[in-house]
């Protein structure tokens, strides 16, 4: 063993390494002759080409088995998530703080809402049809152009006071801000079991007085004719129905925790792990 444990000096090591990289006597480069290197590289090249081909073949086969209209499974999408606009995330979730008297603090929020609503202008919605039935809009056939299905129109004016049309500042300067609640799309999801699901906003903690909220459209419901969603390929122009909430009695200079739940059969909001399933929680603080 003694021979193996001999301490080599640094220069010896370097010399050994140099000889390993190119040994002029044996004409070995890193322990192989050059022709050997060519062979081994060619082999691995071929091997990896075959493996990539195999991988591509597998993915191709996978794609051919996939239904382009709807996913095979929706294991994680039992209940839709809920999002809020404007959405400003702090380190602990949604935090919307602004100062009434300082318009720089709320202009961003207002712009965010306007940007969000550009998809809901009549021009953006012109491909969609007007729906009046208050029932699920079930389509078993492709009635739209290019083998698509029809989608119902949702325009921002349906949000009335919170549409940004009558009040371009969405009530922010008055301290009665508008927020838009959106329910996530899930393919072939029938929310509410026949009754339209509605948004209900409350304080998280018991406050001395109840939260006064105006809901737009009326009652804060998502009309059933927007459901079910048939997927991006079938309904390329589909846009989520929205509910706007306007808080009327927000105490100034206090951080308030508000939760907006969607009430309806099939929508759960008690998943301890997921704070955005069936509900959206946020902190609101209006200063003056």
């Amino acid at each position, binding site marked *: *063993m*003694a*021979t*193996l*444990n001999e301490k080599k000096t640094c220069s010896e090591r370097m010399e050994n390494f140099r000889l390993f990289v190119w040994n002029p006597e044996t004409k070995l480069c890193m*322990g192989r002759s050059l022709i*050997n290197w060519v*062979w*081994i590289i060619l*082999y*691995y090249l071929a*091997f*990896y080409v075959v*493996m990539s081909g*195999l*991988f591509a073949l*597998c*993915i191709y086969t*996978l*794609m051919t088995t*996939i239904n382009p*209209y*709807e*996913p*095979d*499974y*929706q*294991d*994680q*999408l039992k209940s*839709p*998530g*809920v*999002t809020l606009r404007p*959405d400003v*995330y702090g*380190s*602990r*979730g949604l935090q919307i703080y602004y100062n009434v008297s300082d318009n720089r603090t709320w202009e961003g929020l207002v712009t965010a809402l306007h940007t969000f609503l550009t998809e809901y202008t009549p021009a953006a919605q012109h491909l969609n049809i007007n729906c009046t039935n208050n029932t699920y809009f079930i389509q078993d056939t492709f009635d739209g152009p290019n083998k698509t299905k029809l989608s119902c129109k949702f325009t921002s004016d349906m949000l009335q006071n919170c549409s940004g049309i009558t009040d371009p500042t969405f009530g922010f300067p008055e301290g009665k801000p508008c927020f838009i609640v*959106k329910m*996530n*799309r*899930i*393919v072939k999801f029938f929310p509410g079991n026949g009754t339209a699901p509605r948004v209900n906003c409350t304080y998280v903690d018991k406050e001395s007085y109840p939260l006064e909220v105006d809901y737009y459209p009326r009652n804060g419901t998502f009309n059933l004719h927007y459901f079910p*969603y048939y*997927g*991006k*390929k079938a*309904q390329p122009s*589909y846009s989520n129905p929205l509910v706007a909430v306007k808080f009327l009695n927000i105490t100034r200079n206090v951080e308030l925790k508000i939760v907006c739940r969607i009430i309806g059969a099939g929508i759960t909001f008690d*998943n301890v*792990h*997921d*704070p*955005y*399933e069936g509900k*959206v929680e946020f902190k609101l603080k209006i200063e003056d």
Partner: protein
Amino acid sequence: KGNKKKKKTEELKKELDLDDHRLSTSELEKKYGTSINKGLSSARAAEILARDGPNSLTPPKATPEIVKFLKQMVGGFSILLWIGAVFSWISFGIQLAQGAESPFDNLYLGVVLALVVILTGIFAYYQEAKSTNIMASFSKMIPQQALVIRDAEKKELPADQLVVGDIVEIKGGDRIPADIRLISAQGCKVDNSSLTGESEPQSRSCDFTHENPLETKNIAFYSTTCVEGTATGIVINTGDRTIIGRIASLASGVGNEKTPIAIEIEHFVYMVAGVAISIGVLFFIISVSMRYKILDSIIFLIGIIVANVPEGLLATVTVSLSLTAKRMAKKNCLVKNLEAVETLGSTSIICSDKTGTLTQNRMTVAHLWFDNQIYSADTSEDQTTQPFDQSSPSWAALSKIVTLCNRAEFRPGQENLPIMKRVVVGDASETALLKFSEVILGDVMNIRAQNKKVAEIPFNSTNKFQLSIHETDDPNDKRFLLVMKGAPERILERCSTIMINGKEEPLDSEKAEAFQTAYMELGGMGERVLGFCHLYLPENEFPDTYQFDTDTMNFPTSNLCFVGLLSMIDPPRSTVPDAVSKCRSAGIKVIMVTGDHPITAKAIAKSVGIISATSETVEDIAKRLNIPVEQVNRREATAAVVNGMELKDMNSEQLDEILCNHSEIVFARTSPQQKLIIVEGCQRQGAVVAVTGDGVNDSPALKKADIGIAMGIAGSDAAKNAADMVLLDDNFASIVTGVEEGRLIFDNLKKTIAYTLTKNIAELCPFLIYIIASIPMPIGTITILFIDLGTDIIPSVALAYEKAESDIMNRRPRNKRRDRLVNHQLAVYSYLQIGIMQSVGAFVTYFTVYAEQGFLPSTLLGVRVNWESNAINDFEDSYGQQWTKYQRTYLQWTGYTAFFVSITIQQVADLIIRKTRRNSIFRQGLFKNKVIWVGIFSQIGIALILTYGLGHVTALNFTPLRFQYWFVAVPFAILIWVYDEFRKLLIRRYPGSWWDKNMYY
């Protein structure tokens, strides 16, 4: 400092320098200031005790336990994992300071990594702690009490109170309390076996008989045993200055060499660590330059380290080794140092003792000569009859002498034991003769009773014969029978006739010549020869009332009738020749090292095949060609018998030359220290040396050897402690089975490592692709730990049970420089071929799971930042569905689980292909190794428990998985199997080809 230590060792290796044996009693009294009658005074004794210290061996400085423990904590891969753990905590700290939402993941990861290190460290420490301390048995050997004369009084003192100059008395059964110069002795014999390895008790007297203190009769050594008689002596050395003390310090001074397997594992650890660090650093740089945050890059680095390090492997190796150790214990090889299991397999030279290891350690009658003819006797261990021709009346006469002229007796109460196993009271050759006649004639004690003994002269060294006079068992024959045995030449001197075919014929010069030839021939075989003669005393001169007087010898002791010769030898064990030839075909050189006479040593070496029938020594050639020894070309001689005296004068170059040039070597008459020199000489040749030994004197050599083998029955405790392995049956053949097991475990460890390394790529690729393609993380760090320390553990141990692929005893011992445990073929094949296949299989599963849940492969590329953002809770998939962060995370965990399951499934295939390296699996047998199946079932069972049983524990990142995803990787598992069969087929078909060189590991 190192030089000083070396010098000290050199000094110790020199023969002992002592002159007390030459001094006369009065000189001794003067030298030690003592008196033979009165002893030392208590005051003087106390003074000397204060000067010299107690008469006990100082234990060596042991490494503190805590240091040993900490060494385990930072050795091997531990340091890498510690780095990972520290990085985890650092990033936890940073995230906590930044107020991020879930910083605790990193804290847990760090804790888990630390736990892994600590647990494997404790495991390794526990294994090491099992190895016992060599000095323990030395201290056990210290005699408790000694009878000392002090202040003119006899006193019982604890032996460690003895000082130089004390007068001690010893009697049979005592252990010698210190090195003693005897001043008076009555029939004293000591057993020096613990010191010199010679088992025969040696007589001790107060005469100065030899220059060498080790050989002279008037010195008795510390820790040896007084067998019989009594003696008085002056203490000349105490404690560490005694011979045994020097040897003990020599044994602890000789460094324990690293075992070959330890070196291999170190090499492997360096390799894997090198890969881990270089890939880690490379991707750290890549991720930083791809504008990932430093913190993220650190987390990637941790992942890469964890994926690269086979956390469970070192524990697996330990378990595999201990399983083999258990298996070897069943075959009578008890392994003390686990790593020695493999060392035995790579052994290229075995230095074996003769007595007890190669031989049966008992004298047995080997040849007879009567009627001018040599007969061979059966010398096997379990003889029940003797096959030679017993019809001659000469044999009847000879057998009578053998039976009657013998003082040895069986201990009573052993009638049911086989004759060879019975305990006999008497010396070695008488025992041999007694057993021999018991085997042939039956009840010897009865024969002796019928031939009543009337007079006897026991053997003594001056007349060199033994004589007894008996009545005969023939009631009509009133003559007395005088029987005599002894040194053949002395016996012949007393004879005038010789018995041929039952008839007495005059002993003429021709017959005397025949006797000489036979005597020389038997002696030349290294056998101890005894001559036998008898005489029927004439009835008229010696009536039955005659009073025989052994002092005046009033009976004839010459003109006797010579009957025959018997020669005895300690015969080789019957399994040894076969074992030696096995060693030979396995490329292992067997060297005999013995304290015995060269002729005997050579004879035994020839009979067991250590010196093969056709090879000659220099002396043989000289004899054959009739030329002086000096003129013989030394290269021509394949065999060599080297005398200890010659060895003493040799320098290391000369020894090297002998070891190089001769393939068959016997060292005879070697002294204790020379064994160490021989071992070092062999090691200079680059050999892995196994040494057998039993005495205390062997312990330095046992320590120095790559693997020391102590004898379980004959071995002293010190030898057993110094050794790495104990042969429970003292049988050389057991070493060979050990070698076989050692070679097998080396092959099987290769398989285990190949199996374990393969999936590292499947664990590593996800990180690399995650960093480069920004897809959602395919597998989590915790999940990787569950593979490394969960599903993969039992299968990798199961490979240790794999049977050998071919006759592993027909190839040369592995070259410890070239034949690495982990060679580049193994690494490259595992990493770049099978590992890549596994990764592809696992990625297919991953993409399938995501696609079927809504994320087609094309949408996954480049989504990492949004995917992991807590601020996006309406993340759109390929179908326009929107996902919250938690829903995505849960899907990601499902992805982890799917990836995990795919790796597990493909590891089953990997396990099956690793059963063989060359042969087809179908030739090896798919079901022969049941443990492999236990491994496969455990693997799948653990995976099932993790996914379905613990799938709801969020911290573990497992989720229940749809059943069909278990089968996505199955085609790839089959592909791995088919590809490997193809590889093996080409290797077998085209040995030595490019393919063989690059694909065989």
